[in-house]
């Protein structure tokens, strides 16, 4: 059997990967050197690297406070997404009148940008008394349609007989969700965690609108404030970007296997 060698394919992929990584390496290098991006000739390796721009970021703004705020909001968002999306996903696996209409409604709602719904969202948050709170910041993304469908796809792959057996044993629906379905859907959970975390972590517009207290700000708001405080922003700005990126990157790398499995669950279902 004539098998073609793999190395040209791998070499091409490696070259493409290296190309994709160039912007990240550039950001990392600039954060260590403060080198202007228009420096000519450009160098691949950093010249005289140091970590002082990271120190500038840490002390110029209350970085730790913003970090804690971002983490608290992300924890609320991730927890709520797992609970609510699992329940919604389970509901969509059941048969009921108007199921198709609800799915169509969900799919069509995905096409509406958040900016369109921002005024009603603000008014609802205000009526609930959640302006300037962590819960208020988390509210609009406590359940997301994409993640509901991720759970639905994962639950669809669970044999119906298992649900029937649980029902015969007398388990109510909420126990079937959290004791039977969710433990069997680790990839869907990982996908929910990653997506919800990244959406929450990078959220700028919504916190900008509902947060008035400086100490309640999250990292993306801190970044905009940082730009107004620091005179020479090149190195420190890139250092800030790395510090904001790092937690999301670590979480993605840790759970990437489950994340990819979660996105492809049900893809081959015929």
């Amino acid at each position, binding site marked *: 059997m004539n098998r073609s060698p793999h190395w040209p394919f791998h070499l091409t992929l490696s070259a493409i990967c290296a190309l994709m990584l160039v912007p990240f390496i550039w950001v990392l290098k600039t954060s260590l050197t403060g080198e202007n991006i228009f420096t000519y000739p450009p160098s691949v390796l950093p010249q005289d690297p*140091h*970590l*002082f721009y990271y*120190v*500038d970021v840490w*002390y110029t703004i209350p970085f730790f406070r913003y970090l804690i705020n971002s983490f608290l909001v992300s924890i609320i968002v991730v927890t709520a997404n797992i609970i609510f999306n699992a329940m919604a996903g389970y509901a969509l696996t059941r048969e009921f009148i108007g199921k198709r209409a609800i799915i169509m409604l969900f799919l069509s709602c995905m096409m509406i940008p958040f900016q369109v719904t921002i005024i009603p969202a603000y008014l609802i948050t205000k009526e609930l008394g959640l302006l300037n709170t962590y819960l208020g910041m988390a509210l609009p993304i406590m359940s997301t349609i994409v993640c509901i469908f991720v759970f639905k796809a994962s639950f669809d792959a669970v044999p119906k007989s298992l649900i029937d057996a649980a029902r015969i044993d007398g388990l109510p629906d909420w126990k079937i969700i959290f004791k039977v379905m969710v433990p069997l859907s680790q990839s869907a959970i990982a996908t929910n965690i990653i997506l919800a975390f990244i959406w929450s972590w990078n959220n700028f517009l919504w916190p900008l609108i509902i947060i008035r207290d400086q100490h309640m700000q999250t990292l993306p708001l801190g970044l905009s404030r940082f730009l107004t*405080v620091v*005179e020479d922003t090149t190195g420190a700005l890139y250092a800030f970007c790395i510090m904001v990126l790092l937690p999301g990157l*670590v979480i993605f790398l*840790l759970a990437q296997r489950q994340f990819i499995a979660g996105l492809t669950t049900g893809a081959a279902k015929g």
Partner: protein
Amino acid sequence: MLRSVFINRYTITFGITITIALLWNLFVIFNDSGILSGRVVDQNNQPIGNAQVVLSEKTLLVTAPQDQVITDAEGYFRFEGHRLYHLYLEASKDDWGSSSSQEIRLYFKGQNKTLKEPLVLEPNS
């Protein structure tokens, strides 16, 4: 079972992160007395006694002096208790001259540091 709970990539990653943070904070606790010492010399590397060394902080608009000390007979100076992380040192002596402003960057506020290179006084022109 217990092994898989405690030894996995999540616990190892977060465990290492927390350990590094704890060790760093311990290092900071024992090295943040704000001691900054160094030496003032002339162009022939001879110590300059009785020179004034000014420690300044650069803000967005101005360079604001925060502290000043006088060198001893051997040209040594020592600041204590500063709470800065980005500062400037400048030495001068009335009948002699002054040094250029030297930028000092520290990894945390009040980090103890001994300057490797002395401040070099240049004669008044």
